[in-house]
């Protein structure tokens, strides 16, 4: 029987919502109570039911936990799963992102704080530093965002194992065309309004999230003030913020099958981190960001919470499910591509990450 699971990582543990029909949900957890879960990946490649979680105990440090039974039981490597090599004189702070690679079923990428990318060749149990990015001459000038300095976004491309994109706050978008050996910044068109002399620098943009769309070379990016689309795999970017209530936000989602379909989760402003008009909402475009419409049926008004960069997800169901988690511990699910939402969890700690998938 197929079930949909929604993994909900919070400031104080991991919860899992399960449903056979995406209407009735059961909630289980917490796993890792009192540990922060900032990253989750659900690995369904080759029919697996693996769940990976980047877990940080404030006492006992960061690690990656791995489940092979859909999140019911967990193990971790006896040796540090993610560790900086001795010559870097650096210690891992937090695993911000876990991304299964679509081209190799054994490869998982990890984006971490401080700014670095790691690669696992054993399905996420252990990881090695990607030296090409670590040794990049720009790295000393990458600045931490408010939440810390990390590679928070990793976008591989199915069918092109040599291509990889990462994003960081504040460093911007970087791309590799040789599977991570070398990297170049790729921010043409992305505005860094906070830079005093040049608002369009080569790098240093505060990119909040990048999602791969289904059009040719299609990517969507939510920035610190700015929403963008690329039609050339991130070589150049065009603003698609017109028509949105605000250009600020953290999360952006793309439809897993239909080109040009994108969801944005607007936040009023960088100095006003609440939903626009205090109405929790998503904004949907069906034409690559040319036009937008609000979807808020079932989402609360009088809402002064915020949806963080990884606290939103889509599944691959038909129609696609859309999920958002809030900083005040609610998780909302839509089984109809955002037309209506129901609350599937409440009173959790701050939601840091939401991921959804169908398990068979």
């Amino acid at each position: 029987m197929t079930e949909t699971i929604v993994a909900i990582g919070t400031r104080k543990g991991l919860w899992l919502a399960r449903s056979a029909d995406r209407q009735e949900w059961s909630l289980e957890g917490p796993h890792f109570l009192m540990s922060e879960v900032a990253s989750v990946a659900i690995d369904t490649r080759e029919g697996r039911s693996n769940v990976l979680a980047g877990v940080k105990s404030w006492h006992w440090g960061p690690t990656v936990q791995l489940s092979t039974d859909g999140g019911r039981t967990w193990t971790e490597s006896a040796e540090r799963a993610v560790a900086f090599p001795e010559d870097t004189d650096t210690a891992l702070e937090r695993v911000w992102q876990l991304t299964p690679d679509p081209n190799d079923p054994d490869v998982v990428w990890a984006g971490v704080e401080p700014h670095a990318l790691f690669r696992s060749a054993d399905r996420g149990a252990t990881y090695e530093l990607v030296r090409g990015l670590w040794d990049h001459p720009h790295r000393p000038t990458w600045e931490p965002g408010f939440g810390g300095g990390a590679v928070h976004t990793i976008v591989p491309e199915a069918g092109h194992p040599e291509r990889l994109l990462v994003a960081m706050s504040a460093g911007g978008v970087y791309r590799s065309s040789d599977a991570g050996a070398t990297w170049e910044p790729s921010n043409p068109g992305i505005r860094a309004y906070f830079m005093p002399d040049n608002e369009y620098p080569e790098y240093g943009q505060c990119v909040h999230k990048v999602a791969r769309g289904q059009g040719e070379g299609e990517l969507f990016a939510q920035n610190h003030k700015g929403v963008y689309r690329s039609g050339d795999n991130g070589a150049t970017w065009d603003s698609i913020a017109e028509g949105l209530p605000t250009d600020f936000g953290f999360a952006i989602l793309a439809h897993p099958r239909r080109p040009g379909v994108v969801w944005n989760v607007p936040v009023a402003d960088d100095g006003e981190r609440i939903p626009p008009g205090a109405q929790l909402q998503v904004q949907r475009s069906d034409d690559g960001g040319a036009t937008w419409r609000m979807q808020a049926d079932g989402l609360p008004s009088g809402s002064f919470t915020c949806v963080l960069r990884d606290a939103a997800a889509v599944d691959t169901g038909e129609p696609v499910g859309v999920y958002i988690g809030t900083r005040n511990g609610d998780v909302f699910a839509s089984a109809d591509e955002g037309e209506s939402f129901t609350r599937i969890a409440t009173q959790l700690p701050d939601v840091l990450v939401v991921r959804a998938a169908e398990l068979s």
Partner: protein
Amino acid sequence: MPLAPVRVILPGLLRDLAGVSEIEVESPQQSQTVAELLDRAFSEHRILDGKVRDERGEIRRHVKVFVNGEDATRAAGVATAVPAGARVHIINAVSGG
């Protein structure tokens, strides 16, 4: 004549991971440091190493190691000397929110 071993006493979560509540470590003829003691103590319990120390070998910020009741972080840190027969407590600091 062998020197009295050092007893490393674990806190709750680490006991669960290690399956023991304390680890007895032989004392070398020359004195040993906290770092050397932890190397020996964790050689058979590798998962504990990543919990107590980061990959640079530093004791994690919210972990305390007491040698005979004295906080090693207020002495010489991981270079603090551990005498034969010492009782070493690893504890999670009272912190968090």
